[in-house]
């Protein structure tokens, strides 16, 4: 029992933090945002191929590194710290669904290409399957505009959909670093996963932890950047960080962030160990991390004053990603309602 990074995990953390800090700069993120695809393709290539980050948690037989959710959370946290514009989450969702519920053939066919970054994956919920064909509209597909392969949880099964089989329309999305697309499937030919229920459960759980880790990194960035600003910015002849109102707000941010850090790594570790409280942990991490990120990003704007709500300043990137982290794959209220059920509130007194 030791709830701290192993030496290897600490090394991975160090590596990915440096990588994102150097590569996922504000300039590059903003360039990716301008494209409406919210995708830094060069960064993606480096992350997938040079560092192997996309296949980190994939079994080695499928081209991955065979690591687990802890390492995946480390990567997601580091990417979140830089609000990196990358389809990490969307690809992880597709990968996990395939690993958990795909046929042997499907896994062999798709996983190595997804792990290497050659293909980008995504995941959506909606539509219906009828005679091996997908019908209807699937909204809010993250990074859908750059994805090559979609896992679609539809009425009637879970489908594998190729990009060219349906119409994919990019949406103007509040968070431009992980924009949504809409899929209109007018009878697109799809393959079904072997075990759809398992695929969805596995994918969403991984998604919750990944979003929580992204939120943890983002919230920490909000705190760090605001602390730096509070030490520099002078008003009334004093660094604003000397005002107790500011100090206490920053302290409150740290209190929330440290709980979120415990939650994210508890959830990741419990998932890797198959612990009995793994599901509760994943709900807890997603719910808390989303609240923490919104709280910290809101405070980042507030404590920066006027410049905090300009387009030019990065605060709004965090603020919008925080909102997206909160609503994608279940709101905090929804996750807490699940926890209420898990602790037995619906059982007889």
């Amino acid at each position, binding site marked *: 029992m030791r709830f701290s990074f192993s030496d290897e995990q600490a090394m991975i953390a160090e590596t990915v933090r440096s990588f994102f800090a150097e590569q996922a700069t504000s300039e590059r993120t903003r360039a990716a945002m301008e494209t409406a695809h919210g995708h830094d393709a060069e960064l993606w290539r480096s992350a997938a191929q040079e560092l192997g980050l996309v296949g980190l948690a994939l079994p080695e037989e499928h081209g991955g590194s065979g690591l687990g959710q802890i390492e995946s959370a480390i990567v997601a946290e580091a990417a979140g710290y830089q609000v990196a514009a990358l389809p990490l989450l969307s690809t992880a969702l597709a990968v996990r669904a395939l690993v958990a519920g795909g046929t042997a053939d499907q896994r062999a066919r798709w996983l190595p290409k997804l792990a290497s970054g050659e293909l980008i994956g995504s995941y959506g919920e909606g539509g219906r399957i009828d005679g091996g064909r997908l019908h209807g509209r699937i*909204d*809010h597909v993250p990074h859908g505009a750059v994805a090559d392969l979609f896992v679609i949880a539809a009425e009637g099964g879970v489908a594998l959909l190729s990009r060219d089989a349906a119409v994919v329309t990019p*949406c*103007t*999305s*509040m*968070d*431009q670093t992980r924009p*949504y697309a809409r899929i209109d499937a007018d009878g697109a030919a799809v393959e079904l996963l072997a075990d759809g229920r398992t695929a969805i459960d596995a994918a969403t759980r991984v998604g919750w932890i990944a979003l929580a880790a992204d939120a943890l990194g983002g919230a920490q960035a909000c705190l760090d950047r605001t602390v730096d600003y509070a030490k520099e*910015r*002078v*008003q*009334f*002849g*004093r*660094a604003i960080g*000397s*005002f107790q*109102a*500011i100090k206490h707000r920053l302290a409150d941010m740290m209190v929330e962030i440290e709980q979120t850090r415990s939650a994210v790594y508890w959830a990741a570790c419990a998932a890797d160990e198959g612990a009995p409280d793994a599901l509760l942990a994943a709900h807890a991490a997603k719910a808390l991390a989303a609240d923490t990120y919104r709280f910290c990003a*809101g405070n980042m*704007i*507030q404590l920066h*004053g*006027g410049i*905090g*709500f*300009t*387009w*030019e300043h990065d*605060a*709004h990137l965090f*603020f919008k990603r925080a*909102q*997206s982290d909160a*609503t*994608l794959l279940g*709101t905090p*209220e929804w996750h807490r309602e699940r926890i209420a059920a898990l602790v037995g509130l619906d059982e007889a007194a």
Partner: protein
Amino acid sequence: MKLGFSPEEEAFRAEAAAWLQAELSGPFADLRGITSLTAAPDRRRAWERRLGEARWGCIGWPEAYGGRDATLAEQVIFAEEYARAGAPPRLNHIGVELAGPTILAFGSDEQKARLLPPIARGEQLWCQGYSEPNAGSDLANVRTRAWRDGGDWVIEGQKVWTSLAQFSDWIFVVARTEPGSKGPKGLSFLLVPIDQPGVTVRPIRQITGDAEFNETFFDGARTAAANILGEPGQGWQVAMALLGFERGVSTLAQQMGFRNELDAVIRAAKANGAARDPLIRQRIAKAEIGLRLMRYGALRMLSGGTGGAEGNGAAALTYKIQWASWRRSLGELAIDVLGIAGEIGDGAEYGFGELSTLFLYSRADTIYGGTNQIQRNIIAERALGLPREPRGDIG
């Protein structure tokens, strides 16, 4: 204590409602329902003139300057009817509510006669130049300088968050006119025409993707020596008095805009089923309570008597943080009601529906016009008599 209106007041209400109805379903029908502060500026300029012609522009002002000497109740009624009619936001809000009352309070007879009627007629629009990039909440940390040159003041410096400057004819500028002075001393309150080579207005793009605020640069800008309000060096007192006018009848008009926003949230919640969620219901009820109490808080302020031991002067200091916090919460409620669908815009340009924009835009409410932190200092120090924050520089 009486909340109802007299028959005479109700007659006034009918007159105002009829006029507004005629205009906004007739010549100005295109402006009905507009809520954006920056939309249709040319038409809203025409609307300001129409209000002025009919003497509805500044009804609380003395008749001599184009007003109606309206009573408090009449002003309340007009604000309510204006909003009820779906009339657009006043493009000359700052002229009518801030510049005008300040000129009334501090102007010479000559200045009042020269400057007020064009505002009342809707011919001259105003904006304000308070904040500076290095000052932020520390309003007194003014670096913009001005000095006399012959019959003019010459101005050098930069103001920021000058909303509506792109549509305005005049800007009032707090400038340092005593070289070497610090903080609130040595400032003067200057009235400066905008349409001149020395003034440049540059929009600031915000979190919403829009640009509603501006930076305004003064590079050898000039204004006549007569365009100073109060004495040289008295600028801070004038500026502080002006801020007090922000808590006037105009708050009622602002609240009517909030009413529209809350109604839109309620409609959205009913449309998508969020209205059945007990958590959302609690938040909507809180928003409803808060909105109603803004109205009654404003009426207490305007009624001027004592509703409590402290008198309403102190209570008025709580108004800014109250509405700002309310609206920021409304923005959060709005996006939670919409859910993930609220994060999708309908056009190719970056931009969203009214309620999603409210979510983003309302983050500014607790910052501009004095952050919530500054407001709490003001309340603690002026209303509760607690010790002042020490300055780091001039004590």
